[in-house]
């Protein structure tokens, strides 16, 4: 249950982008820097208006000339001890790539909303998750939101996780483009009091300061380099329980909860379990309700954290399934499957679990995913559950033969 029923009177209908911009605002960032790109534009426009109206006191908004400079400016700002926020998508995210690794390597807790969009060519402004998935090895924590309320609330949770002394890693809060960014839904806009109660001020131990002159981003030769990577990985491990704690703490303050690392829906007794992330979960849950109404044991596992990858939580959640199907909007080209599918299989390989698993790649470049598509996938996976046999391990869901 995302929203506490007692909060209904607090709800207002706003665009998903506005809810996210509002969340960024009440997080009290010191420096925001971003560059407009569809479908992220409304977030930066809303933030710009907040600035113009004096609603983010003390904040500096840098209107940079590129996404590359947006993230670079935040690297400088975060290293100076500032709380920093940005938002981007697809081509903008790709332009940031080199700096993403740099921010993580320097352990700077930047929070950035990624409004998921397909990658060109062909150029395409619509939603899939190829963009953030393509950045999975940059050392950023990646969280995926299911609806607009979660996308907004996740911004605060992200600051809390990122700034923890045992983590100090940047975080991407991923929300589906248009499907979430441009939809108007009733949400609760977090008030400043709640935000302040939840999120303490950012007080880093080290930062650029003439009174204590330290060097950041130095040369690391082979005799010292490995330990930097090792510590980054340790920080990712440390983040696993802290992602859950951030969600629990958020519930204590606001009553809202969306799961920690993962969250099941009709999961415990399910024979067929779907695993997915992002807004498609809404459609999947509707379909599951129909199946459940007719007594069929179908459930879904929502993955909130993709980095760090919650192998244990996933293994535990899938332990009673007879067949698992992973549905996702990305592809590792040349592997013929989505990244989530690959990683779940890899995570379970050295366990006693031998549940058959199949994967479907859906919704590329914003192609509609309807309940009928989900039903088709469930029907096929029911067969896998019954027979224990896999005919096609991974496939595209909706290729138009006439276009090939």
């Amino acid at each position, binding site marked *: 249950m995302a929203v506490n029923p007692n909060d209904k009177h607090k709800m207002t209908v706003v665009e998903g982008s506005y809810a996210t911009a509002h969340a960024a605002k009440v997080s009290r960032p*010191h*420096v925001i*820097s971003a560059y407009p790109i569809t479908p992220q534009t409304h977030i930066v426009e809303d933030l710009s208006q907040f600035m113009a109206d004096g609603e983010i006191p*003390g*904040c*500096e908004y*840098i*209107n*940079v*000339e*590129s996404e*590359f*400079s*947006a993230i*670079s*400016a*935040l*690297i*400088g*700002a*975060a*290293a*100076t*001890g*500032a709380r*920093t926020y940005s938002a981007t998508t697809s081509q903008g995210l790709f332009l940031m790539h*080199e*700096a993403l690794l*740099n921010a993580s390597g*320097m352990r700077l807790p930047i929070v950035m909303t990624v409004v998921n969009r397909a990658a060109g060519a062909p150029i395409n402004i619509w939603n899939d998750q190829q963009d953030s998935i393509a950045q999975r090895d940059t050392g950023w924590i990646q969280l995926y939101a299911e609806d607009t309320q979660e996308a907004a609330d996740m911004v605060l949770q992200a600051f809390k996780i990122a700034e923890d002394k045992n983590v100090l890693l940047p975080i991407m809060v991923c929300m589906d483009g248009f499907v979430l960014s441009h939809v108007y839904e009733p949400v609760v806009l977090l008030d400043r009091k709640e935000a302040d109660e939840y999120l303490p001020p950012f007080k880093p131990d080290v930062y*650029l*300061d*003439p009174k*204590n*002159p*330290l*060097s*950041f*981003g*130095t*040369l*690391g*030769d082979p005799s*010292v380099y490995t330990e930097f990577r090792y510590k980054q990985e340790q920080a990712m491990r440390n983040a696993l329980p802290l992602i859950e704690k951030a969600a629990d703490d958020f519930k204590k303050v606001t009553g809202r909860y969306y799961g920690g690392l993962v969250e099941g829906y009709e999961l415990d007794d399910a024979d067929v379990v779907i695993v997915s992330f992002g807004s498609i979960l809404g459609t999947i849950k509707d379909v599951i309700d129909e199946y459940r109404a007719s007594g069929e044991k179908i459930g879904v596992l929502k993955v909130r954290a993709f980095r760090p990858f919650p192998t244990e939580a996933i293994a535990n959640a899938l332990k009673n399934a007879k067949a698992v199907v992973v549905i996702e909007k990305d592809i590792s080209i040349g592997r013929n499957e989505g990244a989530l599918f690959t990683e779940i299989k890899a995570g379970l390989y050295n366990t006693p679990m031998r549940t058959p698993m199949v994967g479907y790649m859906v919704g590329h470049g914003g192609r509609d995913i309807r309940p009928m598509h989900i039903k088709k996938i469930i029907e096929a996976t029911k067969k896998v559950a019954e027979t224990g046999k896999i005919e096609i391990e991974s496939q595209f869901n909706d290729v138009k033969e006439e276009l090939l």
Partner: protein
Amino acid sequence: MSDNQPFNLLTPGHNGCAGCCDSLAAKYVLMAVGPDCIVVNPTGCLEVMTTPFPRSAWNVPWIHSLFENGGAVAAGIEAALKSLGRRGNTKVIGIGGDGSTMDIGIGALSGAFERNHDILYVCIDNEAYMNTGVQRSSGTPLYASTSTSPAGSVSYGNNTNKKDMPAIMVAHGSPYVATTSIGYANDMIKKVKKAADVVGSTYIHTHAPCPTGWGFDSSKTIEIAKLAVDCCLWPLYEIENGEVTAVRKVKNPKPVEEYLKAQSRFKHLFKMEGGDKEIEKIQQYADKNIAKYGLDK
């Protein structure tokens, strides 16, 4: 910090070559600005030679992020200091090579200057990518032989003149732009001080002969730097709010040949057929400087 002596803000013992231009230039900058600064240093010789973890030669706060984002990182630091209420008199200083400044990082630098952040940016122009083995940059002068613009039987070396980077920074509306040379330390320190005192994006372009990349003895760094000024290949001037306000006069300009023959990057010009005609073109470049800035008047 061991003490507050400006001389020790960049300590010796780093990995630079003997007679290194970059460390001299950086030292002058810190002598001018003092300890109350934050340095942004894009990838290049200076960064690599001064910060082999866990050692650092810097006694001022220092950050290296990438090769091409110095302008943006500096902008972010300035914004953060403002927002955190820690600005005081702390100056944010970018110190980059010709590659990170004039080539790959020009976009980020242009953005920072267009927005007029309160930063000082110093380009240490050693006229090639030294850190990666002396490849040409847009700061490489005409007919210099570099590893990617080598002289050969059908080539006199780099076939373009230097990009006029200071003019580009002036075009951004920068309140203070000046050229300096590591051969004229007092002039450089004076100008860096002045640039640091101006509020807004200010720019110092310093000529910095590199013994390793240019091919001269490491004891001659200052001598070569002075020669470039004295033969008018590197004019020293200040431009305030778009107007040239000061020019260092060169009473009796020396012929460019004197400068060229002292460096092995130009030695082919003295051996190849037709080399003397090509040297004439370099002389014309110097003559243009003399006329443009009235250097000999």
